[in-house]
């Protein structure tokens, strides 16, 4: 599967959220989308997932425009994990995860497996409204796992913002697992260390434009990121000899 983003511009009235964005990605990779607040990360991801139509340009998956796909085709190829999952109605966590199979047909085994992966199987009959922010984020991940077709695309908007360290680690493993099965995995992240840990490539946005795009190790340096975020960064080396970007 190949994702191609061609000259995507998104305007909301006078505000330009994205300006002339070009990029591409192949299956089997985890791509992190980074950037300061209001740099256009969520808009880019929503455009990639076919949830909105760009003002100009196009996003194609294997040559097919994602915003022109039928709802069924899009649901079978693209799974979406929002930053904050919202549900109105008295649903259990399991029912919310089952909704991932709405267009592509029910599968008890896929739903149960997804709930097990995010460690919510024993809480699956709890009501959604009683769930914590972290549980909701894991449930949204489970819904995407139950929905995804291996070899498709998984798009995540800050999927780890409410997770503790244990679940952050397992989230990283799940994303890498999906990529190893041929998925294109694209996630907007604020945690640079987590991005360096899981991403094969990064796209860095600033004011709606791509300012960095390439292999994670080559692109993420103290000087490149420091200028974008407006902070001084340094390398720090841990006991295992691994390098981390830290604020000076």
């Amino acid at each position, binding site marked *: 599967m190949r994702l191609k983003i061609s000259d995507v511009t998104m305007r909301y009235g006078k505000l330009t959220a994205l300006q002339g964005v070009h990029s591409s990605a192949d299956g089997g990779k985890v791509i992190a989308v980074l950037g300061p607040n209001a740099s256009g990360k969520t808009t880019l991801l929503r455009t990639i997932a076919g*949830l909105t139509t760009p003002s100009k340009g196009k996003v194609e998956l294997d040559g097919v425009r994602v915003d022109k796909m039928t709802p069924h085709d*899009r649901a079978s190829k693209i799974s979406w994990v*929002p930053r904050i999952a919202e549900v*109105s109605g008295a649903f*259990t966590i399991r029912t919310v995860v089952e*909704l991932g199979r*709405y*267009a592509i047909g029910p599968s008890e085994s896929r739903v149960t497996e997804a709930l097990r992966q995010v460690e919510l199987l024993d809480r699956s009959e709890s009501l959604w409204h009683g769930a914590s922010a972290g549980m909701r984020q894991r449930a*949204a991940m489970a819904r995407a796992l139950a929905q995804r077709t291996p070899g498709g695309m998984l798009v995540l908007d800050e999927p780890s913002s409410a997770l503790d360290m244990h679940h952050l680690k397992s989230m990283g493993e799940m994303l890498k697992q999906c990529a190893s099965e041929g998925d294109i995995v694209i996630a907007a992240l604020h945690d640079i260390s987590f991005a360096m840990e899981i991403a094969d490539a990064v796209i860095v946005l600033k004011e709606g434009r791509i300012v960095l795009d390439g292999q994670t190790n080559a692109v993420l340096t103290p000087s490149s990121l420091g200028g974008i975020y407006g902070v001084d960064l340094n390398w720090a080396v841990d006991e295992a000899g691994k390098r981390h970007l830290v604020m000076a």
Partner: protein
Amino acid sequence: MKIRTTATIVFLLLLLFAGIALRLLITRQVDGSITLAIPEQEFVLYRVVPLISALIVGAGLGVSGMGLQVLLRNSLASPWILGLSSGAGLGVMATMYFEHTYGATFVGSESGGAILGAVGTLSLVYVLSRRRTGIDPMTMVLVGVVVSVLCGAGIMVLQHAVPMGLRGSFTTWLMGSLPEVESWWKLGTLGGATVFGIALISWWGPTLDAACLSDDEATSVGVNLPRIRTRLFLVSSILAAIGVMLAGPIAFVGLIAPHGARLFLGGSHRSLTIATAIMGACLLVFADDIRQIVDIGSGRLPIGIVTSVIGGVVFLGLLLRNRGRV
């Protein structure tokens, strides 16, 4: 169907049958005492017609409220939030005004005016709430409120313009009442349309479940949001308009019935639609039962007053329970 769902629907049906039996048997004697007795042959129809009307209006308003709660993502939504009541009221008032002032006679008279007013108002709300990507729920609520206020102003202007005697007729209509005499053709047509509308919404149940996610999430799992919202709006509006046509503005059934059904069944809309329809019918039938029993010295209360008193208390409870989330 799960055991809990079946048990709930059987329980609600038994409750409904109890309400129906009471309505048929409750008899007020000349001295004001209440007895349970099989009515004489000549009076049966005067109990059966309002009973059938209560079933149609209650079931339709309940399911209409449920549909609008999904459409507007607001657990306090009901048919009246979209200006249906004030639109229908304006239609009735306008009919009365023209009949009185110009001596004109309109087909269907008051109920015709009510249905025209309701459909006109809902069409206006629909057109003004449309965006490039379909109906916007928040815009729809705001437009509904504004249209309601404008219709309210129109009603006041017409009330001011008609003689005092007509104002009384209009006030009576506003209280809502179940007809004791109605043509079988009309009951059959409106009943059939209500059953069809309820069946449609129940059939769309899984889509309604998925439409309870946020817009992006619902779209990502494959819901065609613009299509389901338009369908829900149309069917919910028609169900509510049928209620207005038969019984005038009956408040709160559309709000309470879905919440009552959810207490038993949770959020799955296929079975919830059926339970809501039975719950709505129960509410109206029991309200009519209460109406037969309570006499505050001025005859039987209009049914709209009974549903308003019950509904007002439940509405406040919901409001307090949902404080901060609504």
